């Protein structure tokens, strides 16, 4: 009973502690700006930002921007998954494929996708297509590499077991290879998802068009600093949302994995 009580109070504390910390940080921030230590024109106070956020969320413009960013991210990630998982699996399964494409892949991976922006603008113009292409160029790598490692990580004993018992190739892939790779794929998906979201926002921030990035730039150019900050805050929330959604999918599908096991008796 006592242990359960302590556990509960620990859980409450683990929620309360960070909240208190945030409140203190916000209070210090508010004071520094109000007392003029920091120039109010470049850094708004938290209360200003909260007020701006309140009016911003009643503005259609914000939601259209958020929607365009989410849309670009969704389409981009869909294509990333469709490219990275089969390609990563092929790289992991075939030593020939891995060896022959290694150099090409490493070269393209080394190019920051933002660096390709001038070329992409020429090819795709400014708009949703450009953002999607940018997300794909940056997002394919973590998922592809993780999938490759995952597929390669099949335990030799598990593989031999399946082979000796005459389990066919397709079934072996479904019951042995795919579950082995799944945790790696989940990690890759989270990495790619966050990179994709960063690029989705960066694209319109740098080159305009419609999106959350463009909305941030617009607030900055029109001198509405608190609005700019509230939109940056929303960009942060989108990143957190991506991590949370992908993380919850991961724990649901990988219940058997060491990191998710609830009961372990040895």
């Amino acid at each position, binding site marked *: 009973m006592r242990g359960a009580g302590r556990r509960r109070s620990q859980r409450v504390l683990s929620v309360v502690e960070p909240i208190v910390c945030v409140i203190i940080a916000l209070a210090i921030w508010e004071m520094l700006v109000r007392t003029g230590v920091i120039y109010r024109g470049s850094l708004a106070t938290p209360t200003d930002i909260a007020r701006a956020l309140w009016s911003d969320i009643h503005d259609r413009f914000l939601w259209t921007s958020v929607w365009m960013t989410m849309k670009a991210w969704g389409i981009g990630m869909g294509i990333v998954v469709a490219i990275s998982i089969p390609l990563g699996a092929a790289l992991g399964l075939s030593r020939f494929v891995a060896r022959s494409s290694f150099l090409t892949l490493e070269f393209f991976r080394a190019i920051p996708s933002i660096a390709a922006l001038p070329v992409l603008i020429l090819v795709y113009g400014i708009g949703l297509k450009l953002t999607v292409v940018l997300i794909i160029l940056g997002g394919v790598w973590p998922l592809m590499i993780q999938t490759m490692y995952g597929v390669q990580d099949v*335990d030799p*004993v*598990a593989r*031999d*077991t*399946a*082979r*000796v*018992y*005459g*389990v*066919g190739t397709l*079934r072996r892939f479904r*019951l*042995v290879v795919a*579950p082995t790779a*799944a945790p790696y794929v989940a990690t890759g998906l989270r990495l790619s998802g966050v990179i994709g979201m960063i690029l989705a926002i960066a694209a319109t921030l740098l080159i305009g068009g419609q999106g959350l990035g463009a909305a941030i730039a617009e607030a900055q150019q029109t001198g509405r600093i608190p609005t700019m900050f509230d939109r940056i805050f929303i960009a942060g929330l989108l990143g957190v949302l991506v991590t949370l959604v992908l993380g919850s999918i991961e724990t649901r599908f990988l219940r*058997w*994995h060491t990191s998710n*096991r609830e*009961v*372990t*008796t*040895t």
Partner: protein
Amino acid sequence: MADLSTIAAAPVSSPRASSGAAVLDVRNVGVTYGRGDDAVEAIADVSFTVEPGEFLCVVGPSGCGKTTLLKAIAGLLTPGQGEVFVQDKRVTRPLPGLALVFQEYTRSLMPWLSVKKNVTFPLAARGLSKAEQESSASAALHEVGLQGFENKYPWQLSGGMQQRVAIARAVAYQPSLLLMDEPFASVDAQTRADLEDLMLRVQEDTGVTVLFVTHDIDEAVYLSRRVVVLSGRPTRVRAELEVPLPYPRDQLRTRALPTFVELRTQILAMIQAERRGGVQLTAEPELRAEDAVDA
């Protein structure tokens, strides 16, 4: 005991059906790793046979290529010399009808599959219907005393129980030959004794032909009808011994029998001689036998 009659009566798998011909025939198998100057001769020349319904143990000094030999038999490795025949078929790749229980149960069981799924997952390859797979799996789980654990995951079970799942999987598969690679080497002594008795019972109930590889001489003598003793590297067959111990075997009584003590001492002497380089091979056994009886 549940429906084990179905297991024993399966036409292909029943060792009694093909009585006469050896289930396994290992002929002059040699395995060399590497090439040229770096070549290591793991197995020089090993030959032996396993008869239907037999429980044969292979013992040898550590590092004598026992696992390599098993891999060659299972078709996971092609030997450089010699041939392996399972039911008169030459092994060049894993042949249907073979089951293998590894030492590393945590790695040979799939953590993402339930206990029942772990047992049934190779059964589709045996051409069994869903219903037959289910009944075969539950009979096998019953045989190893794991009824009621079907929907648990392997990692929710103790080490001994996990290895029993692996045994159940092998039994449900109704193999013509069951290969076991040091299956009880990583469980505690008490569990080990339990699993040894379980294997004796399973073998009696199902009549499955077992080739059991171990480095534990006592275990080899206790379990088998015949023991093949391997030499150190490069490996040859050092001796083949009949084990005339009565059935049913018992952890206390069997192990106290003079025949048991003599046999284990004789084998131990051989293996110790092998480890020292195997010079005075013939004089050693008698000497060692006396030492052990005194103690």
